[in-house]
């Protein structure tokens, strides 16, 4: 595998974490424009724990997950009365506030390998975990891909659980959910928190892979890409978000002559896909239709 191909695949894997976190929030019926901030927070936490504190990568990523999840918890509790459009705009403003406050964090330490630590608008430089541990790009891809697969398998496994079915009902119709004794509050808070954690975990991997992060990387465009991926992919199945990632990065960015017009093409493509498939490519309806067919086959 060429290095170019490995880099593309790793980027696809990392951005899939944002797509999955957007997907989790979409399940409970909300749209978040703010997942990029949790991604960014996760990146900063992992960078700090591996360089400044010298912690193990597993613990660092766990910290990223927990800290991002707790910020997401704050967001979900603050916006508990909001929904739809209002929640979308509130999540956007919360994310931008988090990102802008990263510009104000300055704590640098001089080491033999250069300056490390968050340095306001200059960003966080010299995250040397990959070099110190001699991780080749292929090995890093394996690490990232296997953790992504672990999340997806977990989600597929959970898909048939009562928890997820209730959450989908909350997303579909809160009043019906309430009338059969489901409390939307807990599902909303839980899923938004989990989504923040997943985004933070991906952000941690992103920091390790990129070796350099700065606040402007976690702007609104990143979050919207993640959201667009999961919307065009559809809400039927956890693999949906990956289809969106594949269409954008795998198809448009990696093909050289298209990449110059990538944004123009992708923007138009998303709008066109939404006209043809308003619920995304793998819509819940499609999934239930396939399931019914499978059941018929096994019965016959």
């Amino acid at each position, binding site marked *: 595998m060429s290095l170019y191909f490995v880099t593309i695949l790793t980027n696809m894997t990392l951005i899939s974490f944002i797509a999955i976190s957007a997907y989790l929030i979409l399940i409970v019926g909300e*749209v978040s424009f703010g997942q990029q901030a949790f991604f960014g927070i996760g990146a900063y936490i992992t960078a700090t724990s591996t360089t400044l504190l010298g912690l193990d990568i597993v613990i660092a990523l766990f910290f990223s997950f927990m800290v991002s999840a707790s910020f997401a918890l704050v967001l979900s509790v*603050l*916006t508990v*009365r*909001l*929904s*739809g*459009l*209002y929640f*979308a*705009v*509130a999540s956007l*403003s*919360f994310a*931008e*506030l988090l990102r*802008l*406050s990263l*510009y*104000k964090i300055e704590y640098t330490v001089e080491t033999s390998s250069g300056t490390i630590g968050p340095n306001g608008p200059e960003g966080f430089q010299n995250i040397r975990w990959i070099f110190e541990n001699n991780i080749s790009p292929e090995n890093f891809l394996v690490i990232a891909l296997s953790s992504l697969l672990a999340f997806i398998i977990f989600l597929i496994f959970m898909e048939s659980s009562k928890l997820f079915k209730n959450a989908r009902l909350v997303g579909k119709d*809160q009043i019906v959910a309430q009338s059969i004794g489901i409390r939307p509050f807990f599902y909303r808070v839980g899923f938004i928190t989990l989504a923040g954690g997943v985004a933070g975990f991906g952000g941690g991997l992103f920091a390790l892979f990129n070796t350099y992060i700065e606040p402007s990387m976690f702007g609104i*465009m990143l979050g*919207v890409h993640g*959201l*667009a991926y999961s*919307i065009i992919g559809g809400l039927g199945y956890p693999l949906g978000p990956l289809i969106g990632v594949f269409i954008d990065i795998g198809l448009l960015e990696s093909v050289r002559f298209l990449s110059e*017009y990538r*944004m*123009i093409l*992708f*923007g*138009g*493509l*998303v*709008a066109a896909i*939404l*006209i043809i498939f*308003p619920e995304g490519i793998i819509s819940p309806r499609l999934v239930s239709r396939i399931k019914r067919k499978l059941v018929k086959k096994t019965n016959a």
Partner: protein
Amino acid sequence: MEYIQISIDGILYGSSYSLIALGFSLVFGVMRRINLAYGSSLLLGVAIALWVENKLNTSIIFFIPIVLFFCSLSNLYVERFCFAPHNTKAGVVVSMISSFAIWMQLDEISSQLLPDRTHSFPSLEISTFEFGGLFFRGDQILNIFIAFIISAVLFMAVYKTKYGIVLRAVSNSADTAKLMGCNTNLVNSLTFILAGILGGIAAFLVLSTESQVTPLFGFWCTVKGLVAMMIGGLGSLTGAFWGGLLLGLLEAHFSYQFGPVFREITTFSILLIVLIIRPGGLMGVNIYKDLKSRDERI
């Protein structure tokens, strides 16, 4: 005296926000939809107009209608592509995402049309004047005046004309309006064209006070217009006007006290606080008490 000067600067700067928020408010008021591609459709209109002007070398009097024409054209494109196919109740969120995707597309086209970072924009060249030791920028005074006139004219148009009755009928219940014989499709398209003309005026005035245009203008327009509208009250025309001025005032004071990063931080903090405490906006309906907004779950 210093504080008074800052307040004046802030309010005058806020007039740009008001101008843009009015277009947002018009679209939201009629369609109950948020057009996130509004800012970049204005940027695209301006970019095409500048490109045309470079070819033709016209005077500023011809330049204004060119800007208005292309702004309304790009708005119509957004409406046909993102909003017309999703006119059902389930389409609220889908059309928002769709308009977001088109935002990226239009921004990219504009930056291809304007390859440099900044481009000069024809300025109206109205001088600054002094009054009682305070300085006023003439072009910003013109902005605030025009923003006030536009909101008044829109208010009259929505509440006193026949077109306004149709608009309000569609806004109230699109299905009922359709049954009564209104062509809702046409009304929606006309609203977007009107918002495009409005936005064209706004973009022209804002850019001529800055006397330059950058590819970031689309993003700036969308964020500031959205915040100003949300502060003032969703879909309320007077709310959009006052929300813009209030945002400008607060931003000026906070950025003076704490530094330029706080201009943005103020914008988003105010938005978050308003959304948490009174999501309908300061002058809008209380969405917790208003049954209609509660049912719509927008």
